[in-house]
C-alpha cells in the first residue's frame, strides 16, 4: 500500500512557533514605532532613527502633521499584520488535527482574508500618501506597498471557501451511517 502519512503535524508545530515569533515581532514593531513617536513629540532628534533605520527627521521638520500621518500608516500596518498572526495563533489553538474541518476555523480563515483585504486598502492609501509626500518634500517617506496583500487576501479567501466546502463534506460524512 502507498504511504499516505504526511508530515503535516511536524510542519504545523514549526509553523506555530514561527507564527508566535512573527506575532511578537509585529507587536514589538508597533510598540517601538509608537514609543519613538511619543519620544519625538518633544525631542525632534527621536525621529532620526525612528525604527529599523527609518529616518523621519527631515519630514518632522517639514510638517509634524505629515510626520504623524506616516507614523499612523506604519503603526496601522504593523498592528494589522500582528492581528493576522493573532488570528493564525487562534486557529492553531483551536485546531484538532484528527478532525480539522470545523466551521469555526473556516470563518477564521475568512476573517484573515478580510483583514488582509483591509491591510491592502491601508497599503494603497499609504502608497498614495507616499506619492503625495514625494511631490511635496522630494523624498519617499512612507510604505511602498504593491498589490501583494490584495493577492494574499484573494488567495486566503478562496482557501477559506474550499475549507467551508470541506466542512460541509465532513458533516455529511459524519452523518452517513
Amino acid at each position, binding site marked *: 500500500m502507498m504511504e499516505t502519512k504526511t508530515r503535516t503535524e511536524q510542519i504545523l508545530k514549526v509553523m506555530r512557533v514561527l507564527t508566535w515569533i512573527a506575532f511578537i515581532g509585529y507587536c514589538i514593531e508597533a510598540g517601538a514605532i509608537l514609543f519613538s513617536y511619543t519620544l519625538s513629540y518633544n525631542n525632534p532628534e527621536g525621529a532620526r532613527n525612528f525604527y529599523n533605520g527609518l529616518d523621519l527627521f527631515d519630514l518632522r521638520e517639514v510638517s509634524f502633521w505629515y510626520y504623524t500621518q506616516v507614523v499612523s500608516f506604519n503603526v496601522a500596518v504593523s498592528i494589522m499584520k500582528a492581528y493576522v498572526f493573532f488570528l493564525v495563533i487562534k486557529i492553531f489553538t483551536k485546531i484538532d488535527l484528527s478532525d480539522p474541518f470545523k466551521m469555526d476555523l473556516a470563518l477564521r480563515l475568512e476573517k484573515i482574508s478580510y483583514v488582509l483585504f483591509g491591510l491592502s486598502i491601508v497599503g494603497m492609501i499609504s502608497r498614495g500618501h507616499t506619492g503625495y509626500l514625494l511631490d511635496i518634500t522630494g523624498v519617499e517617506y512612507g510604505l511602498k506597498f504593491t498589490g501583494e496583500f490584495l493577492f494574499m487576501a484573494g488567495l486566503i479567501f478562496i482557501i477559506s471557501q474550499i475549507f467551508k466546502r470541506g466542512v460541509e463534506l465532513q*458533516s*455529511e460524512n459524519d*452523518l*452517513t*451511517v
Partner: protein
Amino acid sequence: MPIIVNLDVMMAKRKMSLNELSEKVDLTLANLSILKTGKAKAMRFSTLEAICKVLECQPGDLLEFSE
C-alpha cells in the same frame, strides 16, 4: 427531509432494543441513534443490508418517502 426512517417502528415490531440491534448489525449506538432520529444524511447499502437481515424486513419497510 422527505425520507423518513422507520427504524423504531420495525424495532418495535420485532421487539428488539437499540442495544441488541447495535450488537447484531455491528454499528455504534451513536450511529444507530442518528439513523433513528432522522438526522442521517446518507445510508450505506451495507448498513441497510445488515439491518434488513437482522430485522427480517425489506428496505421499503425501513425507508419511506413523504412530501
